């Protein structure tokens, strides 16, 4: 019995020493206890695929095609009286009119919800470089990102279409965000940038009398 107990304790100590405790960090791939059907022959986003030479499951979009489900409602496309409005809409998609000039005003109906949507997207995608007030003082400034301030006369007088183009395609050192923002979201950001510009450059005469007395002029 004594021998049994010694072996027993030894085995337990050995197991705990080798296997460790729950939650300890390890670089070993997790053991799959029952791997049945964990890995099926199906395609999941961003996974590997041995069929293609570059082994990527997500295929690059060939030029001149539109990814299924991206822009158009499938049912509408395959109905008889389909007329493509969205793809030909250069104002919405490129911020330019038919002649290729930037449009002056955004092509969406303006509402408070749109500004709020713009604020949400702005805080995700722009604040780290341009700062929440749009003055170019984002957290990355000390590390060498010299983002522009929106509060100068040139940018105040630029068209909405131009700002849209900067967001989508970038300008100079700034990369475009075409891959990460839909046209509607970008227009919402343009609207919010306009609101920011106004917030830093509003004259006292733009306020109502009540607001002015509240501020003490």
């Amino acid at each position, binding site marked *: *019995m004594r021998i*049994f107990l010694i072996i*027993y304790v030894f*085995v*337990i100590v050995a*197991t705990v020493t080798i*296997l460790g405790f*729950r*939650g*300890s*960090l*390890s*670089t*070993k*791939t*997790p*053991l*799959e*206890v029952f791997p049945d*059907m*964990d*890995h*099926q022959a*199906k395609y*999941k*986003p*961003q996974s590997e695929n041995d069929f293609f030479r*570059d082994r*990527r499951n997500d295929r690059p979009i060939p030029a001149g095609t539109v990814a299924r489900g991206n822009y158009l409602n499938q049912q509408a496309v395959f109905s008889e009286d389909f007329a493509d409005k969205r793809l030909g809409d250069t104002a919405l998609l490129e911020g330019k009119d038919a002649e290729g000039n930037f449009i002056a005003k955004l092509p969406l109906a303006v509402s408070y919800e749109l500004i709020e949507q713009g604020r949400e997207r702005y*805080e*995700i*995608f722009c604040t*780290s*470089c341009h700062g929440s007030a749009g003055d170019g003082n984002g*957290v*990355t400034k000390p*590390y*060498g*990102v*010299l983002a522009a301030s929106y509060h100068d006369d040139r940018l105040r007088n630029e068209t909405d279409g131009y700002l849209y183009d900067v967001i989508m395609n970038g300008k100079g*050192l*700034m*990369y475009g965000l075409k*891959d*990460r923002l839909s046209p509607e979201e970008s227009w919402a950001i343009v609207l919010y940038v306009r609101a920011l510009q106004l917030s830093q450059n509003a004259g006292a005469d733009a306020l109502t009398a009540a607001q002015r007395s509240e501020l003490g002029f």
Partner: protein
Amino acid sequence: MANVFPKWVNTIPIKVIAAITLLATAVVLGVTYYATPKYTRVGYAPTQPVAFSHALHAGQLEIDCRYCHTFVDRAAHSNVPATEVCMTCHSMVRQDDPQLAMVRDSYESGEPIPWVRVHAAPDYVYFNHAVHVNRGISCVECHGRVDQMEVVHHAKPLSMAFCLECHRNPEEYIRPPEEVYNLAWERPETKEYDEEAIAFVHDWKVNPPQSCSGCHR
């Protein structure tokens, strides 16, 4: 008649029973402790090809999760960012850092960075990120404090029991939708908040599936 069996034989049954009990207890405890995802998965922290730190980018620089994991609130799959997203900053920040050589090469050649996947649901499970994050379930419930991790590790078991634990009582985990990306948010420990959460689940008709076909379609 002489004694055929010596006296010590009398204790054999007790010893055998004791040994079997000890062995059984050890095996049961060992299996419950080690053979579940709480041990096999939690703590998995593979070495990534680039020493990318969430503690620096998401924690210290406070970049929103959606700057990189852009589609987490719009799609089932939460994408790992393209190299271009890193280059939006690293074309200006640390342009010559050898740690970032792979990022620059990848951007020039178009070959993706071979990130090692940490979390993976088995192929027979349908999981949808957008459904969860848009309904007030934060990343922290399933991924832990990623914004404090130098190297991402598997923080929660993501087993079926884990999913169901929340699906049965969503009001214990739900938070205001605007706090979903703020992993540091702490649930107020007050009765009012508990009632608010129950009301939220009721008013928003939050109804997580508990039937098998909800997750195994």
